[in-house]
């Protein structure tokens, strides 16, 4: 069991410093240096060739679209774009890399010196970007013979090189200092804002759960804000926004305990385990010299013309924080309401629902209440919950047209999520439409009045607010399939 220090105490005694490395898998059709497909889920090793298998004599050629995406990411992160840069070989022996080196960039990244503003609790934190560089992904290993597919205790491993050579952009922040107790939240907000930006750029699917966007978190502690940086650890395997926050928090708590005990934090890679909410030691970090970087002799330099860069700058989407401000105003939400929307990751679904014709407050209501709850229960992202923005708009239209009420709408959502079709189809199939036939309603109201003579008397005496009990009785008899406002009208009509 790892010793931990309570988080609040830890940040009281130590100043956390954090650096985040995010790998973004681009959505190009072909790989970074060869024409093999990047499609996900193909049969093992069916998307390989001499280049990505590292066969002798095979020569790489750069995918121009990947360079374009890299420049657009750099520009969106307010980076300088290199006028001239090269690829470099990063040498290491590991079976996920058949060439025994990864083609990456070393001291000449394509983009550098940028920033990304992220918001935590209404406060803007500027995260400085050190660099964004191009590289290639590695293969996928399966460990055989051990428990639950882990390396430990495995008898051997099997390699699928389909992912080998898929274009990656690695985005590295400068040390993030001064966030104090907010450090874990800043980490999460940064990855989330970056993910939204990447999605808006359309250069990657940017789905963390599918590994299109992966985060490594470097964390260290120092005695005070003016002390030198402490020894850092690099936590890998952080594959959800929630994990980013938890992993950083955990490392702060763990390192504080190590330092409190008078020991040194080891410079190492640590693995995050979602199930236990803890990190464990991985391999000791190799130093940069150990990778023996040198310029890639098989590729010529990349020298993006300023005209090209400016043309790409013209294709950038609105920056995320600016977009949030604009939408808050356009939708007429309060800042607090919008903060909840952002926290629930509901901006895009609501935007699409509004675009489909729904009133912003109605769209917000469905996404933040019913659908957020169900996404939470299923443990999926809001966009994966199984109801499209168009369906939410149709649902609200049924409510607006008084075909159903809010309570029945929840059953309609159940039906849509269960795969029973469009909202209107669910209403038909389940017979959920409210009874608009005044004859049936009228009879139910008469029954309720007869069954509750004392309440009826109060209403006759002018206590209209007592009608609630009668409405409840009518709704019960109608199995909820009535418009409460119409029921109230009928009751008041009959008792005045």
């Amino acid at each position: 069991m790892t010793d931990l220090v309570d988080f609040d105490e830890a940040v009281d005694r130590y100043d956390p410093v954090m650096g985040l490395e995010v790998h973004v898998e681009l959505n190009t059709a072909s790989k970074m240096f060869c024409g093999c497909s990047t499609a996900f889920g193909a049969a093992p090793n069916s998307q390989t060739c001499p280049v990505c298998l590292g066969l002798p004599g095979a020569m790489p050629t750069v995918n121009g679209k990947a360079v374009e995406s890299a420049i657009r990411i750099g520009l969106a992160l307010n980076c300088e774009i290199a006028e001239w840069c090269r690829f470099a070989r990063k040498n290491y022996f590991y079976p996920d890399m058949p060439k025994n080196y990864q083609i990456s960039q070393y001291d000449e990244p394509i983009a550098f010196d940028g920033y990304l503003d992220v918001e935590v609790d209404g406060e803007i934190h500027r995260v400085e970007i050190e660099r964004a560089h191009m590289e290639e992904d590695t293969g996928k290993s399966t460990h055989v013979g051990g428990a639950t597919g882990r390396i430990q205790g495995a008898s051997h491993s099997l390699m699928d090189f389909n992912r080998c050579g898929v274009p990656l952009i690695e985005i590295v922040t400068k040390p993030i200092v001064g966030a104090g107790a907010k450090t874990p939240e800043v980490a999460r907000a940064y990855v989330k804002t970056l993910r939204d930006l990447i999605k808006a750029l359309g250069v990657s699917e940017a789905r963390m759960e599918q590994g299109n966007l992966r985060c490594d978190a470097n964390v260290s502690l120092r005695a005070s804000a003016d002390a030198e940086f402490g020894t850092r650890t690099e936590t890998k395997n952080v594959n959800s926004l929630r994990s980013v926050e938890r992993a950083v928090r955990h490392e702060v708590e763990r390192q504080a305990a190590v330092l409190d005990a008078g020991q040194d934090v080891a410079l190492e890679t640590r693995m995050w385990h979602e199930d236990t909410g803890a990190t464990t030691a991985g391999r000791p970090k190799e130093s940069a010299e150990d990778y023996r970087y040198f310029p890639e002799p098989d590729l010529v330099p990349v020298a993006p013309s300023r005209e090209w860069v400016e043309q790409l700058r013209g294709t950038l989407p609105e920056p995320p924080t600016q977009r949030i401000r604009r939408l808050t105003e356009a939708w007429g939400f309060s800042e607090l309401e919008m903060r909840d929307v952002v926290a629930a990751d509901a901006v895009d679904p609501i935007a699409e629902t509004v675009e489909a014709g729904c009133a912003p407050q109605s769209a917000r209501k469905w996404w933040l209440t019913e659908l957020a709850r169900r996404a939470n229960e299923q443990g999926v992202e809001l966009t994966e919950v199984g109801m499209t923005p168009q369906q939410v708009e149709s649902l609200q239209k049924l409510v607006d047209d008084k075909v159903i009420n809010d309570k029945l709408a929840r059953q309609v959502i159940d039906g849509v999520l269960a795969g029973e079709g469009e909202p209107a189809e669910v209403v038909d199939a389940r017979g959920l439409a409210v009874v608009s036939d005044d004859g049936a309603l009228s009879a139910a109201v008469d029954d309720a009045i007869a069954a509750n003579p004392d309440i009826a008397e109060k209403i006759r005496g002018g206590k209209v607010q007592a009608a609630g009990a009668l409405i409840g009785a009518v709704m019960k008899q109608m199995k909820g399939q009535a418009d409460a406002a119409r029921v109230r009208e009928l009751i008041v009509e009959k008792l005045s």
Partner: protein
Amino acid sequence: MALSVSDVERLGRLARIELSPDELEQLAPQLDVILEAVARVGEIDTSDVPATSHPQPLTNVFRDDVVAESLPVADALAMAPAAEEDRFRVPRILGESQ
């Protein structure tokens, strides 16, 4: 620039080659000779020569993002010392406590 035995040991580890104490003793001076030979290049005055990593004075050689045919799986695996379930089989990976 005498290469020490511990330097060679470190190189061996990075290259994942196991070396016996005898081999380390034997290799250190041999590698030293090679390094000294290469170091002679440094005697030339290159202050006017720009560093170059590619013989062709080209930049921006890109290909279009078009999918080309991959190797048949059997061909891809043909030279693998061992394969299993259409994957390359490798010995167990050590040095990770994951």
